[in-house]
């Protein structure tokens, strides 16, 4: 029997066929934004992957060097736009580390609660987008329906649906509004059932299993070597969650389970997010249960805006502080701090170097999507064209965060 592969070669053994270069993106329905991937295809099999990013590079870090510490807060929203409160939280924690202050307890609970809501909203979207990329459109519609509830709660608390800008250095912007708690509890109640619905629709489905099981596999050591974090790392069997291992804010008072799965394939990454949403719902409920009374921002007029404008008008000193903070920002002690939190996508770190002025000398964002996306080249090698879509979906890159 002749070897079929010989047919594509001439007598000298040179290959007569050549790889097809396929350009996926930057505008493509399932690259989750403006990601561009150059694929070297042999038939439908992938020989090489080159990920080209930067189509959404907006210069956030450069801009931050020209902004005061307060003005940067709205910028951080727009990094990982699916879960803005997490970004706010990481940023203000870094500034607070430099100022060596801590937000009041109630503010910490509110922040954590919102970060968990953001986690659900981020995970929801991706757990709907992955099946949609594989053809199951309805899942996306269902998850967006529940996401609207989170958007509604966010609008109720902060006034914006996506870009909350709610955390402030030394606290949060406002207290929770009236009527929030029953709504939030209702949401938790509904959400638990709805996650079951998604699982019923998709997680046992043989087609979905076939498309995601053993696709894009990565082992634990390799995942660490490639710097994966968050659900992508935990799906490979590495039990590392900053909320448990390096607790920040009030996570040490809450009880939750760190979801770890063994296989490290697309299905496990997806499933990991599903289960994390359940944990997040529990965390939100715990936050609501434990929520203490008290102020929501530190009483430091030289840093935080007073919420009540009457105090500004009542004393000259407060007035001067207010004008100072608004117009020129507040100086931050010289030094550098790196603070990272467990964002929905993985380790989100803010590294701020301050030279003692009201503007940072350098602000570096350790964007988890950026690092996670890097592993695409390793995961996709040897897969089929259609698998690349599943792998991108399971890595969950948010291009705004990748490109900064």
């Amino acid at each position, binding site marked *: 029997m002749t070897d079929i592969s010989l047919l594509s070669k001439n007598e000298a053994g040179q290959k007569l066929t050549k790889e097809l270069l396929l350009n996926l993106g930057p505008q493509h329905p399932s690259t989750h934004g403006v990601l561009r991937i150059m694929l070297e295809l042999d038939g439908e099999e992938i020989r090489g992957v080159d990920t080209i990013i930067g189509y959404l590079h907006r210069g956030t870090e450069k801009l931050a060097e020209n902004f005061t510490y307060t003005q940067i807060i709205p910028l951080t929203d727009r990094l990982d736009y699916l879960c803005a409160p997490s970004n706010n939280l990481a940023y203000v924690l870094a500034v607070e580390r430099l100022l060596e202050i801590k937000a009041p307890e109630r503010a910490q609970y509110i922040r954590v609660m919102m970060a968990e809501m953001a986690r659900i909203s981020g995970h929801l979207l991706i757990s709907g987008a992955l099946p949609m990329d594989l053809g199951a459109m309805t899942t996306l519609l269902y998850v967006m329906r529940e996401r609207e509830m989170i958007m*509604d709660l966010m*609008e109720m608390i902060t*006034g*914006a649906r996506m*870009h909350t800008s709610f955390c402030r250095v030394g606290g949060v912007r406002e207290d929770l509004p009236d009527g929030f708690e029953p709504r939030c509890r209702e949401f938790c109640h*509904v959400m638990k*059932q709805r996650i*079951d619905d998604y*699982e019923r629709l998709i997680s046992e489905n043989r087609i979905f299993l076939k498309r995601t099981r053993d696709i894009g596999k990565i082992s634990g050591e390799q995942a660490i070597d490639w710097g994966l974090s968050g659900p992508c790392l935990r799906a490979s069997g590495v039990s590392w969650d900053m909320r448990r291992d390096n607790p920040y804010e009030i996570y040490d008072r809450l009880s939750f389970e760190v979801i770890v799965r063994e296989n490290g394939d697309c299905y496990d990454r997806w499933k990991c997010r599903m289960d994390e949403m359940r944990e997040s719902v529990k965390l939100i409920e715990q936050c609501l249960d434990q929520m203490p009374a008290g102020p929501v921002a530190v009483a430091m007029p030289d840093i935080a805006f007073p919420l009540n404008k009457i105090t500004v008008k009542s004393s000259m000193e407060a007035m001067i502080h*207010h004008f100072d903070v608004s117009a020129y920002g507040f100086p931050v002690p010289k030094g550098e701090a790196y603070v990272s939190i467990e964002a929905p996508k993985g380790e989100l770190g803010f590294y701020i170097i301050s030279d003692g002025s009201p503007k940072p000398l350098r602000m570096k964002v350790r964007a988890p999507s950026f690092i996670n996306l890097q592993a695409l080249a390793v995961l996709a090698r040897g897969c089929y064209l259609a698998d690349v879509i599943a792998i991108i979906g399971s890595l969950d890159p948010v291009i705004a965060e990748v490109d900064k």
Partner: protein
Amino acid sequence: MYNENALDRISREHRWIGVTFFLDLINGLSLTFKYMFSKSVTMQYPDREKWVPYPRHRGHHVLRRDENGENKCVACELCAKICPCNCITVVPYEDENGKRRPLVYDVDMARCLYCGLCEDSCPEEAIALGSVFEYSSYTSEELVVGRDSLLEMDGKTGDPGSVVKARYLPLAQCTVEAQESSGHDWWRFIHRKD
């Protein structure tokens, strides 16, 4: 981990039964079938219903008036300074009573981030972000809004956080006229009974 129904249990315990008789697929099909005959959660925005945002909503800017009906703004320019995108332009003048007032107060809606920092920094609580969100325009020049139109914008009104009845007026700049509250709560739709 999650509440299994009977079909799930069968397919989990005896996997071959599930695989042979397509229980996994039937499970999904039954779910979509159930949803098909449930009430839709859609809000019929332009024609029938309209969402009135929550009181904290950050939409179109508003200049507030004090109890005498005068502009509250004292043109201290704090909002212009704190704005990350420099979208507010304030030119002060002194009115006949010797008070500082804005001669020009322009907000460039096309550049604004709607972050709410101006609202936070205003010592007089004059500038605020209101609940109006329908202000699309055909040209970007129209999006620079001046002092007088900011004063005319209504602030945070209505029955916030609910769906009200609405009527679509196509010819008059495609406005959607909000009418009385229908007492209809969007959350009621989404909450499926068990």
